[in-house]
């Protein structure tokens, strides 16, 4: 699961007469990732396509033209390829029929358009009441026809001998040629533009009726022609789609020799085969006759530009659903570890911590589960699966760590500093408690009557879980930051260990540097906890949540560090545990020796990486504060007595909850991916691998 499928370099050599049979087998078994022949050896040249290649390509081209004419769309997911032996003849026959039918349709369409224009040109004339011959054949008269201007009466002033005919909103003016331009100008000022008088004879009404009858007739024919094409589309769509897929396969096979090397009598195929599939492949090929198969297992590259084997990742089950998140970053190279498994563990935990709410978590688990069940396979479905797992983790954390749902805690929690004060200074604790209860009287909770004398707004649902932390209490936030940093330590250590594995065979120097970074990481971690612990030790509230957590970590992860044994570095005056100082010095020496003299400065970036995980706490707190503010305003409205305000409050509350539900998931999702990509991957993951694509696979997956 951590390594890509083992590959072997394969060389297939055979006599040319067996070429076609071999291609057929390679295409069927789908286990050879072909390496294109570059054409650089004496006596060898690029292969020629198989004999039927040109013919097949031509058929495919024709078929696509037909499909385009009939507007047949290729469906997502494709169809089973099926090219019957007589496919070429059928395509030719179909092409002829469809070309004729399509030309006919285009001709009719042209006629219909033409008739439409003619009818439009002749619309003014029936209402004017003059036969067409009345408009033509004058030696001294000009005829102007056009839409009626607003004021036609003034025209007689321009030309005393003008004769006007009007009707249907149109005007025909007969003017002596001498006054034509003056009349035109006068008309033009009123926005008149003249239309052409058709060169025809007869009664305009009859002419128009004749054209309209023609138009009706041709329109019917156009519908008929379109209907015939539609019938053909329905009849042949299935055949065309199947034949297209089949022909594509055939073309792919026929053109495969273009990727091979050939001499006069032999062919050579070069490629990569998963080592486990070498023997079946050899058996298949040798059944065709005298085909020789030479294989060699992939080895670590001897020099930089040696070709790397293609990568076939072997994730199954849950990690497989996270593979797209790795591929989106980069495909792992053949010689390095596949980080998918780690991502599939890290993502849901980080997402769950940032959401940390039983309500949103459960909703995301359901929504993601539904999406995963209903969607077609693909990246989005895998993302839904990731959201489902993240939602589950968020529900678990929300129930048992923070004890809250939809931003409302199950129970009011007394701040941990007041609880801690109870043991050391009961008087101060009592006064602080009294102060806090005044504030707590406005805070929301699911259960009612948690604290005697505190009547806070509540929903009356008693979930019997005592929250360990509250996202909006200061000392609990410090505890959350410390938890985040602890996760950073574990996650980053894992990253460096993976880096060591990756570099082991490559460079021992880099291995030493990775070890040094781990030492620096743990040294810095110990410094952070020693500071917090020193604060807690002498404090009157040393039993607060974050102090308890610090004691827990110093007992489990840091017993070796002896956090109490501090040394102060002279000049700068910083105190740190002696153990940290030793670790940091060793780390600095190693990286200075193996990487570069200035590399010890990079220890600061390890610290930055660690603090970067504080976003786990940060996003959780920011989200809780946002929805907390909405809830505080809107829930009392819903719980109130006024019906109108109840409804308004409920609508606004649903909107606010949805906003936080989606925005929270977007930011938590992006940050969870980012922590894996930036902080985690960069420590060990180079990527840039080539995906294993065996010959013949493309069409098979589409089918």
């Amino acid at each position, binding site marked *: 699961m951590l390594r890509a499928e083992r590959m072997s370099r394969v060389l297939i050599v055979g006599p040319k007469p067996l070429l076609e049979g071999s291609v057929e087998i390679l295409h069927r078994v789908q286990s050879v990732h072909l390496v294109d022949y570059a054409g650089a050896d004496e006596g060898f040249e690029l292969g020629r396509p198989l004999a039927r290649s040109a013919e097949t390509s031509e058929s495919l081209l024709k078929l696509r033209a037909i499909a385009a004419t009939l507007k047949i769309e290729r469906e997502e997911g494709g169809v089973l390829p099926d090219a019957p032996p007589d496919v070429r003849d059928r395509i030719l026959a179909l092409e002829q029929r469809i070309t004729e039918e399509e030309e006919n349709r285009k001709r009719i369409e042209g006629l219909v358009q033409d008739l439409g224009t003619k009818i439009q040109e002749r619309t003014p004339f029936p209402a004017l009441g003059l036969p067409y011959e009345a408009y033509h054949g004058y030696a001294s008269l000009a005829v102007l026809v056009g839409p009626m201007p607003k004021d036609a009466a003034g025209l007689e002033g321009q030309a005393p001998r003008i004769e006007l005919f009007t009707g249907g909103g149109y005007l025909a003016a007969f003017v002596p040629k001498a006054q034509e331009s003056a009349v035109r100008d006068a008309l033009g000022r009123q926005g008149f533009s003249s239309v052409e008088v058709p060169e025809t004879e007869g009664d305009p009404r009859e002419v128009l009726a004749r054209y309209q009858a023609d138009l009706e007739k041709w329109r019917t024919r156009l519908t008929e022609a379109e209907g015939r094409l539609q019938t053909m589309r329905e009849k042949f769509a299935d055949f065309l789609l199947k034949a297209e897929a089949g022909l594509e396969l055939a073309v792919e096979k026929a053109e495969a020799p273009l990727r091979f090397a050939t001499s006069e009598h032999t062919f050579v195929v070069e490629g990569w085969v998963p080592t486990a599939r070498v023997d079946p492949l050899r058996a298949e090929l040798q059944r065709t006759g005298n085909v020789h198969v030479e294989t060699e297992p992939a080895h670590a590259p001897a020099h930089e530009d040696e070709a790397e084997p293609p990568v076939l990742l072997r994730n199954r089950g849950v990690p497989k659903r996270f593979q797209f998140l790795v591929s989106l970053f980069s495909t792992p190279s053949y010689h390095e570890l596949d980080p998918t498994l780690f991502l599939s563990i890290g993502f849901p935990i980080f997402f769950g911590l940032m959401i940390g709410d039983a309500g949103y978590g459960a909703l995301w688990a359901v929504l993601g589960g539904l999406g995963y069940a209903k969607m077609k396979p693909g990246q989005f479905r895998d993302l839904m699966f990731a959201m489902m797992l993240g939602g589950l983790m968020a529900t678990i954390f929300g129930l048992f760590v923070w004890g809250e749902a939809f931003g409302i805690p199950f129970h009011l929690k007394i701040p941990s500093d007041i609880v801690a004060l109870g043991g050391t200074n009961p008087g101060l604790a009592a006064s602080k408690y009294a102060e806090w209860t005044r504030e707590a009287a406005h805070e929301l909770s699911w259960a009612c009557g948690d604290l005697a004398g505190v009547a806070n707004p509540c929903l009356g649902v008693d979930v019997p879980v005592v929250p360990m932390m509250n996202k909006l209490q*200061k000392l609990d936030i410090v505890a959350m930051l410390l938890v985040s940093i602890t996760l950073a330590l574990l996650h980053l250590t894992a990253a460096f260990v993976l880096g060591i594995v990756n570099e082991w065979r490559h460079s021992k120097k880099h291995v030493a540097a990775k070890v040094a970074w781990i030492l620096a990481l743990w040294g810095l971690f110990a410094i952070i906890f020693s500071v917090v612990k020193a604060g807690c030790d002498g404090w009157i509230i040393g039993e607060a949540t974050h102090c308890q957590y610090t004691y827990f970590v110093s007992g489990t992860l840091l017993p070796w560090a002896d956090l109490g044994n501090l040394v102060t570095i002279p000049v700068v005056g910083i105190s740190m545990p002696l153990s940290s100082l030793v670790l940091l010095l060793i780390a600095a020496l190693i990286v200075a020796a193996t990487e570069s003299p200035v590399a010890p400065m990079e220890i600061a970036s390890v610290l930055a990486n660690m603090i970067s995980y504080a976003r786990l706490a940060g996003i959780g707190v920011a989200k809780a504060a946002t929805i907390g503010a909405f809830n505080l305003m809107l829930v009392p409205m819903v719980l109130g007595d006024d019906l109108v305000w109840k409804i308004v409050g409920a609508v606004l509350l649903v909107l606010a909850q949805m906003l936080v539900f989606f925005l929270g998931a977007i930011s938590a999702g992006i940050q969870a991916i980012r922590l894996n990509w*930036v902080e985690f991957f960069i420590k060990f993951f180079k990527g840039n691998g080539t995906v294993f694509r065996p010959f013949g696979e493309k069409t098979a997956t589409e089918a």
Partner: protein
Amino acid sequence: MAVETGLVAMAAGITMAGSAIATAWAEKVVGGATVGAIAENPKLFGRGIALMVLPETIVIFGLVVALQLISKIVAE
């Protein structure tokens, strides 16, 4: 509430504002370039996003410092 408490709270606020503005500005620069790079080569999506969200760490540092300051308020 003591004056010191108010000053600490203001310091926390200024820290958040400053680091948030710095992050926004840095992400604007990187984000613009990233979208350009993705338009030319969609394969860069993953790397681009990784680079684009890098400056977010600045605001996280700000947040940590602000929370540290706020936690001083209870400790007086």
